[in-house]
């Protein structure tokens, strides 16, 4: 279109295009190139020669590997089917009821985020394992296998789904509900005609987020999967067990499929999504309703209790001398120098890494989502950036981490000076957790009136001023959510960084894996407990901050 090409006088469009190009370049560097570095190996032999689809042919002719594909798919679907409705109801209780202790329940639901995924698997072994005190509850079934994977993954994914649902439900137009009430619409009809459609985009996102989280996670199947093979453990076996990067890349490529599918579904859904929060919308404030609130409270108590129980189990274990034979209390497990040469150093490194990830990640993600969602120029570029942003969700940490090794450590790469440094760990972690943060930001931005940018343009106010003066202040709760999400994940991430840490940059989460492997499960639980409490403190700070933000700077939300 010539009209666009000759469009040279528009400084704003040029700035937006430039920023988008910069963002695209950054994401290519952070996500696409590392991924390509590993996946290109899927069509090579071990000497780096091109062999076409020979590796894929070998994959398909290996029945055990194909069985893993099927296992991965049904387990991931099952977890999504279990988790998303639960998360929706829980989020509904948090945002649409006057149930007491909503803040507390939010914090409780976030607890699985506060520890590495394998902690829930460790706790499950303590509870339902062959020595577990509730072993009989499984009626003879073994926790090692699909049962354990589904349970542990459900716990692990719950907060991820919940975050999306809460964001989707938080900003609702109160008038819609008043209208419905005035029309004498029954509660269930309001739910199906107003609440559910409003959260539809979030629901679909949540399903795909959970599905891909499960299909790409290897920590849980590794610890509790027993003989039940899934794609992620296959990738681990190929890469770590046999140093067969080529077959690992094949499995990695197969793991990418659901993400690409998710991306196209997401695009379709997005087209139908319209802004829910215009200036004339009135924030929804639920009215007390004893019966509803009591039922939701009971539900949240059960779910929250389960989540706390999982965590409590691990914390208790961290104070035990030798489970299950010597249950005396000890603090020795917290003297990390006995188990790991870095001692508490790994913990401090993790704090630094998480802090930097939160700061840079949130800035890049939110501003990037704004550029994608709210600016007009270069639609192809915006689509490309959005695609890159959706990609990491599907990439197993192990695959991304190895991709970073191949890319950053390539002899020709000037970025090699960062190898093994905190910079690479931060970059990798931002990339690894980009998608959920991006979805949160986009969901938030979609709920802001699309005409704000048009009005600004008419007033000759550039979009970056409106971003600063209006968009960010309106979105502060979501921005804080993203920052905390990134911080906590950076504290707990394992699989992506296990190949990347260097001398002096070993992280607490890696120390946990090492201690667990050497049998110091209690010390691993102790380190995990430290991480959990740190993350919880950050979350409490977040809640306090949220309250201040709402009370002082967001007076406009109250009618």
């Amino acid at each position, binding site marked *: 279109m010539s009209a666009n090409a000759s469009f040279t006088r528009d400084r704003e469009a040029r700035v937006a295009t430039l*920023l988008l190009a910069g963002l695209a370049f950054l994401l290519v560097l952070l996500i696409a190139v590392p991924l390509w570095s590993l996946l290109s190996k899927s069509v090579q032999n071990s000497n780096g020669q091109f062999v076409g689809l020979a590796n894929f042919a070998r994959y398909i002719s290996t029945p*055990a590997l194909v*069985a893993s594909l099927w296992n991965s798919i049904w387990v991931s679907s099952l977890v999504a089917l279990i988790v998303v409705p639960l998360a929706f109801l829980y989020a509904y209780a948090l945002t649409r009821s006057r149930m007491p202790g909503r803040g507390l329940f939010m914090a409780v639901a976030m607890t699985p985020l506060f520890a590495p995924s394998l902690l829930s698997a460790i706790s499950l072994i303590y509870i339902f*394992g*062959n*020595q577990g005190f509730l072993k009989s509850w499984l009626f003879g079934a*073994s926790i*090692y*296998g699909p049962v354990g994977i589904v349970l542990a993954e459900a716990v692990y994914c719950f907060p991820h789904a919940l975050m999306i649902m809460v964001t989707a439900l938080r900003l609702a137009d109160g008038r819609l509900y008043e209208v419905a009430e005035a029309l004498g619409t029954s509660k269930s009809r309001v739910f199906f005609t107003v609440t559910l459609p409003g959260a539809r985009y979030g629901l679909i996102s949540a399903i795909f987020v959970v599905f891909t989280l499960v299909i790409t996670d290897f920590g849980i199947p*590794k610890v509790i999967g*027993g*003989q*039940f093979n899934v794609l992620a453990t296959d990738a*681990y*076996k190929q890469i*770590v*067990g*046999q*140093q067969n*990067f080529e077959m690992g890349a094949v499995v990695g490529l197969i793991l990418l499929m659901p993400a690409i599918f998710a991306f196209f579904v997401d695009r379709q859904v997005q087209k139908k999504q319209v802004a829910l929060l215009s200036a004339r919308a009135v924030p929804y404030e639920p009215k007390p309703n004893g019966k509803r609130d009591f039922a939701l409270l009971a539900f949240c108590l059960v779910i929250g209790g389960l989540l706390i129980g999982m965590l409590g189990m691990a914390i208790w274990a961290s104070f035990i001398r*030798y*489970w*299950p*034979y*010597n249950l005396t209390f000890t603090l020795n497990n917290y003297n990390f120098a*006995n*188990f*790991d*040469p870095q001692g508490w150093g790994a913990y401090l490194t993790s704090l*630094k890494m998480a802090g*930097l990830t939160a700061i*840079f990640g949130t*800035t890049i993600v939110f*501003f990037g989502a704004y550029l994608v969602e709210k600016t007009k120029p270069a639609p192809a570029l915006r689509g490309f950036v959005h695609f890159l942003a959706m990609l990491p969700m599907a990439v197993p940490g192990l695959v991304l981490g*190895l991709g970073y*090794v*191949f890319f950053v450590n*390539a*002899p020709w790469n000037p970025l*090699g000076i960062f*190898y*093994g*440094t*905190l*910079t690479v760990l*931060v970059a990798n972690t931002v990339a690894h957790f980009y998608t959920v943060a991006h979805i949160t930001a986009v969901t938030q931005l979609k709920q802001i009136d699309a005409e704000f940018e048009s009005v600004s343009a008419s007033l000759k106010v550039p979009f970056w001023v409106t*971003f*600063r003066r209006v968009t960010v202040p309106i979105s502060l709760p979501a921005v804080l959510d993203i920052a905390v999400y990134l911080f906590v994940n950076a504290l707990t991430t394992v699989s992506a960084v*296990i*190949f990347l*840490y*260097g*001398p*002096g940059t070993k992280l607490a989460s890696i120390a946990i894996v*090492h*201690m667990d*492997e*050497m*049998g110091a*499960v209690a010390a691993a639980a102790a380190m995990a407990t430290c991480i959990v409490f740190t993350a919880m403190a950050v979350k409490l700070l977040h809640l306090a901050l949220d309250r201040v933000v709402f009370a002082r700077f967001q007076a406009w939300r109250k009618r």
Partner: protein
Amino acid sequence: MKQGWLAGVAMGLVLAMGWSSAADAQGRTRVTVYTALENDQLQPFKQAIEADVPDVEISWVRDSTGVITSRFLAEKENPRADVVLGLAATSLLLFEKMNLLEEYKPAGADALKPAYRDTSGPYTWTGMDAFLAVVCFNTAEAAKEKVSAPTSWMDLTKPEFKGKIVMPHPASSGTGYLKVAAWLQIMGEQAGWAYMDKLHENIAVYTHSGSAPCVQAAKGERMVGIGFDMRGAREKTQGAPIDLILPKEGAGWDMEATAIVKGTKNLAAAKKVADWVATKKANELYGRYYALVAHPDVKSAPPNYPADAEAKMAKNDFGWMAENRERILAEWTKRYDSKAAPR
């Protein structure tokens, strides 16, 4: 706004670099060492090396054998390690085959037992200590179920062990492969596979980690863990009710070894570290953790270690192990891995 953002990024990069590149103030050469030594061994090893080789500072990158081997191979275009120390010899053989190791024979290498020396082609690696496959047997759980202790590999195929044995998955774990390769060498290929067919009936789970079987046995999660000696000994020392059994047919073993990485920028310092590895003093340090060490004059007996281990070491041809690895794993996967049903 924009400018502030960019400045923030720049500042962050500078900070991150500052944190990571804290230079050594004392002018010592920092040697990056990739290792699979146990976590608790790293500090004593570092202190010992730095005491004996004063102008060297050891900087560890430690992970499990599989991870550190993968990482080393992933970095082969641009190696980051100067020295590999305390990694399974099978991994080092793989590196040697790919021409990733520097040819160097440490000063005292000739004084070591012959099995611990590189004998094929250019001299690249030097053995430090050996570890054996053992059966970790939980006596507390056995007493509950009135099962008597096995004394041989064959005993493990008895029906009373059905669903009670764990061993490492050979495709996930180097020690898992070690055991499979040992059975095939001890019993011969045909009998070896026949044995594993029967053993498979009793296996509860093939674990992804080589350490896990003895840990699970120690915690009573399983009755029998086919693991390796020092992990079992360690659990026992901590109070686990387990016995370490060396089956009478003999046990597979591997050794931990050291080599200099080809292309290292700190070759002189790396050579000094390699020299240290072959000293008697270093071997005395190994002896605190391992029963079998390279130096003939060092006698060691770590606590709770099975007796007469050296006698139980089966014949083990590392070259054969490396050459046949792919074939054996493919066969193993075909026979046992597709049976995905958990037990």
